[in-house]
C-alpha cells in the first residue's frame, strides 16, 4: 500500500519534472530512493548502516554487502552489472552535483525498481513456525520447559548434537544455494545461522517470552511445581525456630528437658514436611 502510494506520487512528480524539464530534481529523488532501499537491504541482512557522513557511496556499500555474503554464503546479493552502472552514474551525479540527463535518471529509477523487486529476508526476524516444522527432527524446545536445574545437564549434553545437526543442514543448504539461488533456502540458512548463534551464546538459560506469561506453555508447566514453595517456607520457619531452641538449650542447660518438646515439634515438623514434599512434588 505504501509502495503503491509512493509510485503514484512518483508518477506525478515525473510528469511534472518532465514538463518543467527539471531533471535535477528527478535525479536527486531517484538517488535518495535508491540510497534508502540499499540501506534497508543492508540492515535487514544484518550489515552495519552505510556511513554517509564518511562519504561511503551507494555502490561501495553494495560491493561491501556482496563481498560479505560471498564470503559467508557464496552468493552475491546485487548483480555486478547493476553495481557497475550505478557506480558510473553515482560518480557522475556527484561530480555534476545532481545535473544528470534524463537517460541517466531513467537508469537510476530502473535500478531502484530492480532493487525493490529483491525479496530480502529479514535476518533479525524470529524463526517462523514453518522453519520449526522443517526442523522437527530436533526438539528445539525440549530444554525450555520447566525445572531448569535438573535439565541443565541434559541440555549441555544435547547442545553439541543440536549444533552439529544445524551445521550439517546449513552446509547442505549452502550447496543447494550454490547451484541455484532460492529465496526460501537463503532465508532458511539465515534462520539456521541465527538459531545456531543463539544456542552457542546462550548463557543465562532464561525462557524468552513474547506475549503474556500466563499463555506461555513453559510457565503453565512450571506452575505445577510451585506447590512446594509453601513446604519450603514452613521448613525454613521451623528450622529457624529449632535453631533458636537448640541455642537456648546450650545457653540454659537446666531448660534442656523443657525445651526438648519444642525441639521435637520443630525438627519433627521438618521431617514430616520433607516427606510431604517428597511424596507430592518429588516425583514430578
Amino acid at each position, binding site marked *: 500500500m505504501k509502495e503503491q502510494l509512493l509510485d503514484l506520487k512518483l508518477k506525478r*512528480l515525473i510528469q511534472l519534472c518532465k514538463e518543467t524539464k527539471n531533471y535535477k530534481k528527478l535525479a536527486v529523488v531517484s538517488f535518495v530512493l535508491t540510497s534508502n532501499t540499499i540501506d534497508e537491504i543492508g540492515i535487514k541482512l544484518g550489515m552495519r548502516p552505510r556511513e554517509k557522513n564518511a562519504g561511503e557511496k551507494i555502490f561501495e556499500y553494495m560491493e561491501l554487502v556482496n563481498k560479505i555474503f560471498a564470503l559467508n554464503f557464496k552468493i552475491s546479493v546485487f548483480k555486478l552489472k547493476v553495481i557497475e552502472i550505478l557506480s558510473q552514474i553515482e560518480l557522475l551525479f556527484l561530480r555534476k552535483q545532481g545535473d544528470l540527463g534524463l537517460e541517466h535518471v531513467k537508469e537510476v529509477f530502473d535500478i531502484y525498481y530492480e532493487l525493490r523487486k529483491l525479496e530480502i529476508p529479514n535476518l533479525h526476524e524470529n524463526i517462523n513456525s514453518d522453519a520449526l516444522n522443517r526442523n522437527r527432527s530436533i526438539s528445539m524446545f525440549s530444554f525450555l520447559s520447566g525445572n531448569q536445574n535438573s535439565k541443565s545437564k541434559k541440555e549441555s549434553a544435547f547442545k553439541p548434537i543440536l549444533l552439529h545437526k544445524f551445521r550439517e543442514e546449513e552446509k547442505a543448504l549452502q550447496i543447494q544455494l550454490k547451484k541455484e539461488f532460492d529465496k526460501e533456502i537463503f532465508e532458511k540458512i539465515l534462520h539456521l545461522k541465527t538459531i545456531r548463534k543463539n544456542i552457542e551464546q546462550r548463557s543465562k538459560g532464561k525462557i524468552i517470552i513474547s506475549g503474556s506469561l500466563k499463555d506461555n506453555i513453559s510457565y503453565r508447566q512450571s506452575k505445577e511445581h510451585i506447590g512446594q*514453595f509453601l513446604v519450603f517456607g514452613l521448613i525454613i520457619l521451623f528450622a529457624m525456630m529449632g535453631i533458636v531452641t537448640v541455642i537456648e538449650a546450650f545457653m540454659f542447660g537446666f531448660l534442656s528437658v523443657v525445651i526438648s518438646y519444642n525441639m521435637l515439634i520443630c525438627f519433627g515438623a521438618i521431617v514430616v514436611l520433607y516427606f510431604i514434599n517428597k511424596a507430592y512434588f518429588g516425583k514430578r
Partner: protein
Amino acid sequence: MSINFKSVYKIFFVVGLVLGFASVFLDWYYLQGISESGETVVYWIYSALFDWSTPFSKGALFNEFYQPKNATMPVAIVIIFIITLFLSAYSALFHDVERKNNLLKLRRFNFVNLSLVTLIGFFVLIFPLFFLLPNGLYYPFLLYYDYELEVTFYFSIGPGYFFQLISFGFTFPYALFNHSVINTFEKEQSSVENTINQYIGNIREELDLDKLIAREEFKLESTSDSQSEVPKNEVEKIYEEFLTARGRK
C-alpha cells in the same frame, strides 16, 4: 480439580502482609512476675515500635530490677520493614506477574519482596537470639517459679511475634514464586522487527514527495502562460514507456 497455587499464594501473601503490619503495633514479648499472694510484681511488655513498657510507675523497684536491658531492636529496622511492606503490598496488588509487560516491572519489585521475607526472617531468628536469650528472656514460653523470691515468672512471646511467624510462612511462597518466575522467564525486550524498522526509519533520508510535487506544480503554473503546454497524452506515454522498460507493466 487442580489448585491454582499462584492465586492461593497471592492471598496468603496479602494476609501475611496484613499480619506483618499489625504485628509492629502489637506486643512481641511478655515478662510477668506474680507473687504468692497473686499480686503482679513484675510486668514488662515489648513492642517492636514502642520499646519495653510497663504498667507500673517509676517507684516500683522490684519491677525496675527486672527491666530487660539492651533488649531493644533498632526502630530504624522496624521503619524499613514497614516501608518494604507497603512496597510489597503495592507490587502484589497492582503488578500481577502473569499480566502483560509486568515481568520487567516485577524484576524491580522482586528485590523488595525478598527483602521483606528476609526482614521477617530476621525478626523471627535474630530477635530471640540476639535480644531475648542474652537477657535471660526464655523462648518461646516458660513458666518458672523462683523459690528464693517466691515469685512465679511467666515468659512468653506475644501476638506480635506470633504474627511474624505466620507472616513468614505466608509471604515466603509468593515471594519465592515471583523470584523463580523472574529467574526462569525473560520478557522479549521488544519486537526485533519493530526495532529494525524503527532503525531503518531513523537512518532513512527524508523525502517529501508531496512538497516536491507542490513546488513543481507551482513552478509550472507560474510559467504556464509563457510556455507551450505539453500534451498530457504525451507525458502519459513517456511514463508508460518508463514503466514498461522497468518490467512493472
